[in-house]
């Protein structure tokens, strides 16, 4: 079965190269049968890569330990759920997953457009197939998931226990789906450049693909943060580790892209900018995938060198230089259809938002690759610690949030400053009151208070605008408030869905501000019966349990938590030793509330019965997760066809046409 998988990969590699070439050749020499053959090739590749994936899944579930990958990441005692997740646990498998997802997306996009975009599609298909060919090349020649051992082990090494966590199971595939998804908009951009169809067509085709990929990438990044918080146990959820940055950077640029394509659709402007952005996004993604797999940056995740690195760099080189040259070549065709009319307009506001997001990405990029540059230039590695990123990016992100409050009130083409001022009066007052209240409550430092005020400003601005819309609709449609709310929401999905997304970001920001600015920490060594206090909490060490749970030896410490005299509950931090993993792993105990999370780690004990604990109180962390959920909900609403589109579709269906 494993051999079948490898053969399928080899065949897929050959067919993808054929399809990429035939597509372009057929289009240029006007031979539709070649183009059709290339299209079939896309479906064939999808079938072959699916076959290879099924082969891997089979090998995993059937415990075929002669396959090195299966032996490295699974063992007999693992549940089917985690055994399946081993598919993407290692390098080779994750490459196969990337390829599988891309082959699925390629097939979908070809099918979606089988009767449309005849000019663009051959080139779209070619770019997708070429990218797929690259990943297949990696697997066929360097990182074969089906590589076999010379013998068959009786059992596998198993998954690292840190990875046996639901968040960690979903984090890699979500990220990979988001990454692969951006290949489609990139392919359309290249196709548009080649065919000189640089108007609305490619933008319209990619809107949902971009939205989907952006949302999934965001979800994957948040899941990673969740895993860091729950499993790594140092008390935070983001360390600005290169691999974390690798997923954040394309996401930030994609956020900019989502906004600027709106401007191109409305006013035909920013055409060159949009091209630049999507090229950057795609290459950042490949670069990020490269970072994770080569030992180039010493990060928490990676520490080994291989031929993979050079191949990735080669691909990035080709993709980047190729698309840049193409863009320069077509610069003349990318003329804007309108000029920026006034200094202050929604267009310029969007452009500012874009610039700031790109500036933030540049900052993160520089901080991330600085160790490589310094080592190459000066022979000594210089790393950049987390506070660098926090200090540089905090003001940048606050400006963006501030913009969320202002820009929706600025009209397209030009703004009336007087009107703007009147609109912003209420949010400004809210912000000031908030700042006053917070400082009176003695909630510390001015920077955090300013940040909270800005969030309050933006939030109240969004809500105000929404309320006005509801009120107006209530009057005109004679509905009650609730009815007006929903009909407004469903009447204009993109606009109000976007408002929800912005609200989600603000909630997330509040969580980030709270947990960064007001974290409290303490350590203590306790005998059973002894207590420690932190930030109004009293924790009493009750005692220790030791027990066996399957393949794990668990040492669990029980602490009773009191706040202001009343008993809140028991927290049980653990350390366990898993049979497959030679080191003791800490399992943090967290108590989730809306206000703050008490967070307890067990770190050592001795024969006298003394146990060492580290306790953190992390304020507002739950707001980060809640903000993420709201963000995703808003995206679903934006994604949904709005009233106009639904009506257009039902009209088309009524007339006997297809979608």
């Amino acid at each position, binding site marked *: 079965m494993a051999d079948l998988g490898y053969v399928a990969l080899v065949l897929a590699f050959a067919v993808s190269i054929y399809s990429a070439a035939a597509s372009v050749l057929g289009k240029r020499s006007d031979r539709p049968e070649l183009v059709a053959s290339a299209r079939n090739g896309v479906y064939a590749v999808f079938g072959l890569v699916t076959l290879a994936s099924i082969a891997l899944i089979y090998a995993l579930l059937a415990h075929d330990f002669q396959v090195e990958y299966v032996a490295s990441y699974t063992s007999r005692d693992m549940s089917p759920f985690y055994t399946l997740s081993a598919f993407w646990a290692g390098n080779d498998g994750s490459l196969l997953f990337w390829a599988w997802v891309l082959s699925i997306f390629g097939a979908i996009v070809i099918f979606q457009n089988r009767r449309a975009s005849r000019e663009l599609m051959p080139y779209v298909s070619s770019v997708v197939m070429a990218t797929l060919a690259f990943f297949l090349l990696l697997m066929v020649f360097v990182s074969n998931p089906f590589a076999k051992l010379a013998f068959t082990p009786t059992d596998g090494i198993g998954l690292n226990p840190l990875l046996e966590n639901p968040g960690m199971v979903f984090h890699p595939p979500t990220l990979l789906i988001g990454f692969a998804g951006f290949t489609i908009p990139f392919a359309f951009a290249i196709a548009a450049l080649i065919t000189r169809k640089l108007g609305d067509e490619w933008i319209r085709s990619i809107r949902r693909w971009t939205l989907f990929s952006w949302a999934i990438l965001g979800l994957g990044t948040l899941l990673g943060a969740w895993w860091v918080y729950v499993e790594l*146990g140092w008390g935070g959820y983001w360390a600005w580790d290169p691999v974390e940055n690798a997923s954040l950077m394309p996401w930030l640029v994609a956020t900019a892209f989502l906004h600027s394509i709106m401007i191109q659709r409305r006013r035909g402007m920013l055409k060159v900018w949009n091209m630049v952005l999507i090229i950057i996004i795609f290459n950042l993604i490949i670069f990020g995938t490269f970072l994770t797999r080569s030992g180039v940056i010493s990060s928490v*995740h*990676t520490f*080994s060198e291989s031929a993979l690195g050079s191949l990735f760099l080669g691909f990035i080189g080709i993709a980047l230089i190729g698309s840049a040259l193409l863009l320069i070549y077509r610069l003349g065709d990318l003329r804007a259809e309108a000029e920026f009319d006034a200094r202050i307009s929604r267009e310029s506001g969007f*452009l500012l938002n874009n*610039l700031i997001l790109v500036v933030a990405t540049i900052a993160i990029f520089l901080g991330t690759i600085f160790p490589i540059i310094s080592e190459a230039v000066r022979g*000594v590695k*210089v790393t950049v610690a987390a506070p660098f990123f926090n200090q540089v990016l905090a003001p940048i992100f606050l400006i963006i949030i501030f913009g969320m409050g202002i820009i929706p009130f600025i009209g397209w083409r030009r703004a009336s400053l007087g009107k703007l001022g009147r609109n912003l009066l209420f949010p400004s007052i809210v912000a000031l009151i908030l700042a006053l209240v917070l400082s009176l409550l003695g909630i510390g430092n001015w920077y955090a208070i300013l940040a909270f005020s800005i969030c309050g400003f933006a939030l109240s601005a969004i809500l105000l605008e929404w309320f006005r819309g509801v009120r107006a609709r209530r009057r005109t449609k004679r509905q009650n408030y609730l009815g007006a709310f929903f009909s407004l929401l469903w009447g204009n999905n993109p606009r109000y869905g976007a408002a929800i997304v912005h609200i989600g970001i603000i909630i997330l920001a509040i969580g980030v501000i709270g947990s960064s600015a007001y974290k409290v920490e303490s350590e203590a060594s306790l005998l059973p019966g002894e207590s420690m206090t932190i930030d109004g909490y009293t924790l009493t060490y009750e005692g220790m349990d030791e027990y066996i749970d399957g393949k794990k030896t668990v040492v669990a410490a029980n602490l009773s938590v009191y706040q202001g005299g009343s008993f809140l509950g028991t927290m049980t931090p653990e350390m366990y030793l898993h049979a497959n993993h030679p080191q*003791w792993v800490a399992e943090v105990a967290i108590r989730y509330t809306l206000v703050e999370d008490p967070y307890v780690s067990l770190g050592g004990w001795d024969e006298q019965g003394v146990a060492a604990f580290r306790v953190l109180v992390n304020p507002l962390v739950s707001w980060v997760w809640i903000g993420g959920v709201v963000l995703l909900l808003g995206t679903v609403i934006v994604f949904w066809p709005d009233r106009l589109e639904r009506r257009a579709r039902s009209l088309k269906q009524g007339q006997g046409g297809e979608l």
Partner: protein
Amino acid sequence: MFKKRRYFVGGFVLLVALGFLLFNVFHSYSMYYYTIGELKAAGESIYGERVRVTGQVAEGSIEYDVENRILTFTISDEEESLPVLYEGILPSNFDDGVEVVVEGGYNSTGVFEADQIITKCPSRYVPAE
């Protein structure tokens, strides 16, 4: 073209502002990343500076005083070894042979005083040899 120039200027100003911000903050939070040999070779020049050093935890070198939460161990690589002192609870995933990055300061005592220990994540993306 006048209008376009305005936007180039704006973008340029932003980049300059960023550069300024980066430069200022960078100094406070950049640190050298050394191997043990490089650390020792650097000598007095890095006393009192915040640095990172990488190595493997030497077999049998871990000693932990639970009462006072003081951890001492030795990191080594193929060539050199370095004693490390850390105040805090025992880190997760920490044992003989584990690859770590320690962050802290070094001085004439010859003992590295770490305030952060980073154990490397499970090696998920190690390519098949």
